[in-house]
């Protein structure tokens, strides 16, 4: 490691996608309901209520531990983390401290310098989510906060990595890979708001470490780390010291801000939770059957569908995307796999990102239909993109989504190749309207023919088959004696 090297470690909190909360029977499906509607004496921390561990959440966490090559400990234990905050109903969080569920393990990511790189994990532990504060009022009307305990008691796993990442980009890749792995395991839903939260530890080699809290999006991690590295490097450049501290990421402004002075540092007074028995679940590990994970699926895509490494990586890096790809090519894997890889991994993802859309809800048969039109040479690539955009906009606006064939018909996008009359007259028009281009062509300017092709394309609104157009244009020019 060289001087000035960036060192990043992450603590990732993920909500486990169980049906009920960690210590009571309340439903975890609270997002579309009013505040404090998914609560009971246990998750409200009412006096006398006692926690009962949700077995399913431990199974989920162990699935993750196995997939990430961790060692599930013979005995693990829940502890109380004591601190006062209005969103914390019991004034302590039930979490795991010195006896976590699992230790060790690793996750492989694509290194910045290429190839696979192992990010070692320190531990995985299970804990409950606190409630949520909703801040109201303003400077004129007085600030106050409302508390919503719907989230209180949602099971979380905290995955702690070793400081093995060397750039914000690697941190982002780690998170993406982790997200994919958790979704492949069916224990996590990344599309649920607030389902992932990250604390990042970051330092420049030789300097103090800074903890950045409150990062709640995948993009945010890269942003927060990039900001923090610049800040730390600037300090060092000016001959100042980096303070060991905790900072908060302000997503909207893209900056980190010092959040806690030394005097306010918490002493969490951990001690074993007396209302729960220690866990002895090591023996469950052998019984856990893991599904196909992202790496295995990537290799399968390369061999089965002949995807390029990059395409396979992109497609399998997201469970929904990978499933979508396989659905699209299912009717004709041999014929469609190559075309689908390009169209989904390159074009579709770009269009989705542009619209900030998720692939869920998108009908694979629509894309299969589009690929068929392209495969059968009925529309050009450019028209293909138009069709795709029309469909995506219809999805986005909750309109009925037309089939690709219907869109081609309605917008008259079919290639004019079969209809040489239309193409011929367009060529003739273009030539007669552009005598200067004709002169240029006569004088041997190679650009002239491209100009004319462009003019014809304009007239046919991109529907002209490029090969056919070229043939007719040359023929026409020849007929005119050029």
């Amino acid at each position, binding site marked *: 490691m060289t001087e000035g090297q960036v060192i990043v470690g992450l603590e990732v909190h993920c909500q486990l996608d169980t049906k009920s909360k960690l210590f009571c029977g309340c439903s975890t499906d609270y997002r579309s309901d009013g505040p404090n509607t998914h609560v009971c*004496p246990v998750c409200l921390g009412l006096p*006398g209520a*006692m926690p009962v561990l949700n077995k399913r959440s431990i199974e989920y966490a162990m699935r993750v531990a196995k997939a990430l090559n961790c060692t599930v400990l013979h005995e693990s234990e829940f502890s109380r983390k004591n601190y006062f905050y209005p969103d914390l109903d019991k004034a302590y969080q039930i979490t795991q401290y010195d006896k976590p569920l699992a230790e060790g393990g690793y996750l492989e990511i694509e290194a910045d310098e290429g190839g696979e790189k192992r990010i070692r994990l320190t531990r995985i532990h299970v804990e409950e989510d606190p409630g949520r504060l909703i801040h109201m009022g303003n400077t004129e009307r*007085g600030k106050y906060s409302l508390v919503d305990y719907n989230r209180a008691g949602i099971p979380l796993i905290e995955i702690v990595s070793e400081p093995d990442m060397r750039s914000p980009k690697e941190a982002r890749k780690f998170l993406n890979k982790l997200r994919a792995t958790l979704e492949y395991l069916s224990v996590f839903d990344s599309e649920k708001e607030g389902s992932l939260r990250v604390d990042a530890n970051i330092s420049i080699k030789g300097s103090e470490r800074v903890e950045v809290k409150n990062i709640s999006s995948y993009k945010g991690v890269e942003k927060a780390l990039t900001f923090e590295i610049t800040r730390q490097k600037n300090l060092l450049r000016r001959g100042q010291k980096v303070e060991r501290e905790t900072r908060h990421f302000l997503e909207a402004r893209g900056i980190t801000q010092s959040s806690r002075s030394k005097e306010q540092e918490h002493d969490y007074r951990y001690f074993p939770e007396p209302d*729960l028995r220690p866990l002895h679940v090591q023996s469950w590990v052998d019984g856990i059957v893991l599904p196909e994970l992202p790496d295995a699926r990537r290799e399968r895509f390369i061999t089965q569908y002949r995807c390029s490494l990059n395409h396979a990586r992109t497609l399998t890096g997201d469970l929904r995307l990978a499933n979508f790809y396989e659905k699209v090519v299912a009717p004709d894997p041999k014929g469609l796999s190559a075309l689908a890889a390009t169209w989904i991994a390159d074009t579709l993802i770009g269009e989705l990102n542009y619209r900030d859309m998720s692939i869920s809800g998108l009908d694979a048969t629509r894309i299969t239909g589009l690929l068929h039109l392209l495969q059968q040479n009925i529309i050009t690539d450019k028209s293909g993109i138009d069709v795709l955009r029309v469909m995506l906009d219809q999805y986005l606006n909750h309109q009925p989504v037309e089939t690709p064939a219907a869109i081609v018909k309605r917008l008259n996008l079919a290639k004019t190749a079969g209809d040489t009359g239309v193409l011929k007259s367009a060529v003739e028009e273009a030539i007669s309207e552009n005598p200067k281009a004709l002169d240029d062509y006569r004088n041997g300017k190679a650009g002239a023919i491209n100009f004319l092709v462009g003019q014809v394309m304009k007239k046919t609104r991109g529907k002209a088959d490029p090969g056919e157009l070229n043939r007719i244009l040359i023929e026409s020019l020849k007929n005119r004696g050029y």
Partner: protein
Amino acid sequence: MDDRYNAFLTTTCKNVTHGKGKLSGIAVAVKDNISTRGIETTCASKILKGYVPPYDAHVVELLKREGAAIVGKTNMDEFGMGTTTENSAFGPTLNPCDTGRVPGGSSGGSAAAVAAGMVRMAIGTDTGGSIRCPAAFCGIVGLKPTYGRVSRFGLIAYANSLEQIGPMGRSVTDVSTLMDVIAGYDRYDSTSVNKPYNHTPQPEIQGLKIGIPREYFGPGVDPNVARVVNTAIGRIEELGATTVPCSIPSMEYALAAYYVTCTCEASSNLARFDGVRYGPATDTNKSWHAAYQEVRRAGFGTEVRRRIMLGTFALSSGYYGKYYAKAQIARENVKRDFARIFSEVDVIAGPTMPTIAFKLGEKSDPLSMYLSDILTVPVNLAGIPAISVPCGKVEGMPVGLQIMGRPFDDERVIDVAYAYEQVVT
């Protein structure tokens, strides 16, 4: 109801209908740290004034299921922290045997209600002697069951790893009947054990071996109390039991281990009382931490605040190993001592309390009050069952004989107490 002893904090409707079941027609009082749906539950603390639980504790459900008439909620030391019931925010309970004396605590209201004949049975809780001490002081019977035998769900926690809900009554038979109703597995208490109690007391104790620990008759124990208890043990010997002298050396650290453990757990358990969700409302114009401080300062009594601070200190970083961790080692030693003794004897007997009931206001410094728990706390540290049964009088005040048993041997402890009770009555 004439409550001249201030035994009750809340009395429910007089015309309580009795249901069908094992407790049909029986009036039962419930200690005020046990949640009762629709009935104010305060733990004798101002901080819970006005709190009405939306659910019943598991034991309350069981009582109702067996037809008991829950007639009210009994006074106690605030959150169970005390040995006299003087630490109630709503005034002390008086001992029906002598109103100038305390009834013991912390289940003093329950004991007084039974002793005064206001109810036939009562539910108490025992964290460090809180059932046995008032039973001894008021001259009634009280059982601290084996840890895990009775569900704690709905019991407002003071020290989770030590406390148990238990039965109190005028006779061993009544205590056994109540135990029959409240014991059993509850899936909502993860520390609950599936050991139901289906037992009728048997007076046959021929061949029983009784351990007599030296420490229970040593310095600090009133010689008059020791004499009365020794006489009582002699009566049991006459029934065919033999006594074996023994020693619990770990008792030297038992009291310290007990007070470290219970204050640590209490500091965490009581942190939730902040005025946000229940109890007296927080002043919302203040910042949250200022409002918390105010509510907690005004809401908790002196002894509660003392224990919260002690526990908070003992758990602080740098002190955990010195206090909490050491207390757990001492606790293991107490368990081991009991296990060793129980490999040779069936039960252990001694006085419940080192003295008779104190005069009101007599124990003014906390340390001498803590010292009076010395004979009851080892049982809680070890999680074993123990009963206090009246065995005579000193200065006209009742003295309790304590019989301790192996884990889950609550039946045997009941039988020995029953055998003794049969001889003396």
